[in-house]
């Protein structure tokens, strides 16, 4: 029975627990406001299955054992307070389950303790060993108490307590010993409770909350800047919003983001885990992020979203990096010198190539590509060409291929021509939100002027920006990617690909179609609908796809540190032994081609856009 001293102790540990939680909450509440609806169903399903955590098999299973073990004992302890009468059969079953779960829990604990003791990395999670040790004491003292009880009990050990039987062998048949173990068990549990907010165990609360408040929109969306704030972008902890600070509290430093970050893998100093760690320390200590995250780290991110995809607790290192870039550019006026020319071109000419609107229709010279205002009847779609489609010599071919496909299918389509401006993706991801908004508003005005409803985008970056980011500025359209639209044309039998593809082909998933918007299957379906297709998947594909290195404005920055990301990807392609790499993005096309050429292999794989491949299969390529 509980004495009043026990009750006092329980009360005390509850108070410490509660005060600690309030302090944690105060830490992340320093942030700016943000709107995040909670997702209770998502949280419950997440906790039950722990699928995201199980992606890493061994650690995931150990985590599952800990989670279910603790939950089970907690439920048992609470139920026991009501002194329920249970039939002996059921009691034995419960005893067996609790025994086995205890063993699993012990194994999991030993795994985590060894893992923590084993690696001494600077970025490893902190405050782990203390709670693990206390939990070990809880489990061991529990088992020993059980063992002693079995020794004292008349019927002795039996099948429904195998672990108890084992511990009975190791413990004396003394009531005093049993009492001591029970007390240790009890104190250790209270200590553990009090430790939750102050050690690694805080993730029980913060990570669960983070799962509850996880992002509901696609991963590629970046939140707009609040121009009313005194500081634009983020440097100090108060410049981040509360969800971003909660992210920092929720990060368990597992390092999965870092292991899949192309910048990190290619030897650049950036590590998304380190960024989250820096923000976490900032929450406690102060000082700006500028001091803990160097310029080389900041500008190395390709915004590939691998860190978002891999994080088991839905932490998003990417939006912190973008906000920190915004701070550099908008607040400090420090745009990297290599990107200045492109940004100036955007300012003067509204395209990333600096060729100007007068040349924006040149790619369509001699083709039947009318301006949207010159269409007979209502337009079925507007073809959004993008800067690369309009100006990049190789991607112009893709734009022409798309025009050919649309004409072959008899689609009543038009383009904005000289009125189309850059979608603003590069400007936004390089931190120049002002330029992005100017361009976006210009485009929205032009699209609304012609009452455009449906757009087909060649470039995934345009696709993501128009589809996910323009609505916040008042541009609401139905946006399709060229791949989806071509697939639809084939499915509706409006075009008939007839010429077979030669050789084996693989697909490189563009980040902004795949991880950004979940478009993986349409690329495969499109290849599947072409005659003679023999598709080989790359080792890293779909969600695990490896970035080409060109996103996030990296296309315009120099790669001075470590290896070139595109060369790493090119090596993977070469390893797969295919003749063609199909992709669906102008940056991927250029980056992969450069990478493959730099390998100087004997028969380099050809990099082609899927749209070009479809046009070739139709019988004519541009």
């Amino acid at each position, binding site marked *: 029975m509980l004495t009043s001293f026990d009750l006092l102790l329980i009360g005390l540990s509850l108070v410490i627990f509660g005060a600690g939680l309030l302090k944690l909450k105060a830490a992340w509440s320093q942030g700016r406001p943000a709107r995040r609806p909670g997702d209770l169903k998502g949280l419950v399903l997440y906790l039950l299955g722990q699928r995201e955590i199980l992606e890493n098999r061994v650690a995931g299973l150990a985590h599952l054992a800990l989670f279910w073990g603790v939950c089970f004992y907690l439920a048992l302890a609470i139920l026991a307070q009501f002194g329920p009468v249970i039939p002996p059969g059921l009691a034995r079953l419960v005893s067996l389950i609790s025994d086995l779960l205890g063993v699993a829990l012990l194994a999991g604990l030993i795994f985590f303790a060894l893992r923590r003791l084993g690696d001494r990395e600077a970025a490893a999670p902190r405050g782990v060993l203390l709670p693990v040790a206390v939990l070990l004491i809880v489990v061991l003292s529990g088992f020993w108490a059980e063992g002693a009880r079995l020794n004292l009990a008349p019927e002795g050990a039996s099948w429904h307590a195998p672990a108890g039987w084992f511990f009975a062998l190791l413990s004396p048949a003394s009531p005093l010993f049993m009492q001591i173990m029970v007390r240790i068990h009890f104190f250790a549990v209270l200590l553990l409770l009090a430790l939750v907010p102050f050690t690694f165990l805080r993730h029980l609360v913060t990570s669960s909350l983070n799962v509850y408040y996880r992002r509901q929109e696609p991963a590629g969306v970046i939140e707009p800047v609040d121009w009313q704030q005194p500081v634009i972008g983020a440097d100090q902890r108060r410049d981040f919003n509360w969800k971003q600070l909660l992210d920092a509290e929720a990060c368990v430093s597992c390092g999965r983001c870092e292991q899949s970050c192309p910048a990190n893998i290619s030897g650049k100093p950036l590590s998304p885990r380190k960024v989250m760690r820096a923000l976490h320390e900032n929450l406690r200590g102060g000082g700006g992020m500028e001091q803990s995250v160097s310029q080389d780290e900041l500008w190395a991110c390709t915004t590939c979203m691998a860190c978002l995809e891999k994080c088991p607790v839905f932490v998003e290192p990417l939006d912190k990096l973008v906000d920190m870039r915004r701070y550099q550019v908008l607040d400090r*006026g420090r745009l990297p010198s290599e990107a200045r020319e492109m940004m100036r071109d955007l300012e003067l000419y509204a395209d990333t190539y600096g060729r100007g609107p007068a040349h924006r229709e040149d790619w369509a010279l001699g083709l039947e590509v009318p301006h949207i205002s010159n269409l007979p009847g209502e337009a079925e779609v507007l073809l959004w060409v993008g800067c690369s489609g309009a100006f990049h010599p190789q991607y112009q071919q893709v734009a022409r291929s798309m025009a050919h496909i649309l004409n072959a299918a008899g689609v009543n389509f038009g383009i904005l021509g000289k009125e189309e401006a850059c979608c603003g993706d590069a400007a936004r991801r390089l931190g120049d939100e002002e330029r992005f908004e100017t361009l976006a508003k210009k485009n929205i005005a032009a699209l609304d002027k012609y009452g455009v409803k449906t757009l087909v985008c060649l470039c995934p970056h345009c696709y993501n920006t128009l589809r996910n980011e323009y609505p916040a500025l008042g541009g609401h359209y139905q946006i399709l990617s060229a791949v989806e639209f071509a697939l639809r044309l084939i499915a509706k039998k409006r075009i008939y690909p007839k010429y077979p593809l030669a050789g084996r082909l693989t697909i490189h998933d563009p980040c902004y179609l795949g991880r950004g918007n979940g478009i993986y299957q349409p690329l495969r379906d499109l290849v599947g609908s072409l005659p003679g297709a023999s598709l080989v998947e790359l080792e890293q594909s779909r969600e695990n796809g490896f970035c080409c290195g060109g996103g996030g404005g990296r296309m315009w920055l120099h790669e001075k540190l470590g290896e070139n990301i595109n060369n790493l990807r090119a090596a993977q392609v070469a390893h797969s032994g295919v003749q063609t790499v199909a992709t669906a993005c102008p940056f991927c096309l250029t980056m992969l081609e450069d990478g493959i050429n730099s390998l100087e292999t004997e028969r380099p794989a050809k990099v082609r856009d899927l749209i070009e491949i479809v046009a070739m299969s139709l019988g004519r390529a541009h």
Partner: protein
Amino acid sequence: MRIVVCLKQIAHTYARSGRDPDSNYLEPEDKVLRINPCDEFALALALEAKEYLPGGAEVSLLTLGPILAQIELVRCLALGADWLFQVDAQGYLDPWQKSSLLARSVQKIEADLVLCGRESLDSANGQTGALLAHHLNMPFVSGVRKIDFGTEGPFAVVRRAAGRGTRQVLRCPLPAVFSVEAGNTIPAPPSYDQKRNLGSPPIQKLVLDAAGVAPRYVQEAQYPPRPRVKPLTPPDNCLDSYGRVSELLSGSSMEKKGRMLTGDPETQVEGIITFLQESGVLEPEKEGELDG
């Protein structure tokens, strides 16, 4: 120290995408309003001086004629310039008149250093700086890339591009006029805060009497650029034949201007004749001559 930076606003024509010979094949979107690029580099040098000079510097922008590129001028102010002076002037002025007007403005501002771009993107005279120095009776250095200021005495140590990669370091007493060469790195853009703090830009008008100065040289004629044949790079060998041909064919509409003639052969022939007449190859036919 007072530094004056002369900024030329230009309507830079980068394309001729129109179809109408009367408008010189120009469309509204064929030009961008901007500040002469070299002048932007001059401004960057002035702002650098403002930042690093122990006593700081006051940077005044000076522009001649009507305000064309307001946004760009405001951008220059946001970068950190203190004043913007506009010299009132209308119509065509030759370099002599321009420099004389500018010189008198500089005297009004009482500048210690005058910076301008080496030459302008639209007329490429490259004279304004030199003539300005002449009017002001100041030393002149052209092609300046970097300026350092002496600690004792009013002089500057400038680094200039002396052509074909040679770099020269000169010591020059102040006040002086320097014309600045475009650098390799584009100056950093203004921060949002700088723009936000600017409020409404203060433009100060300087009204000077231009009537007294006669032009020294008069333009006799000016010809628009001839459509030039674009030097073709050999097509990419990796492409298939169709790809190679279309790569050869792809050029901007500035280089190749064509008009598709439609209709039956007769109207097409008429089209060709009209075209030849319009471009002055054929004499325009006289009324009734064919019948006679």
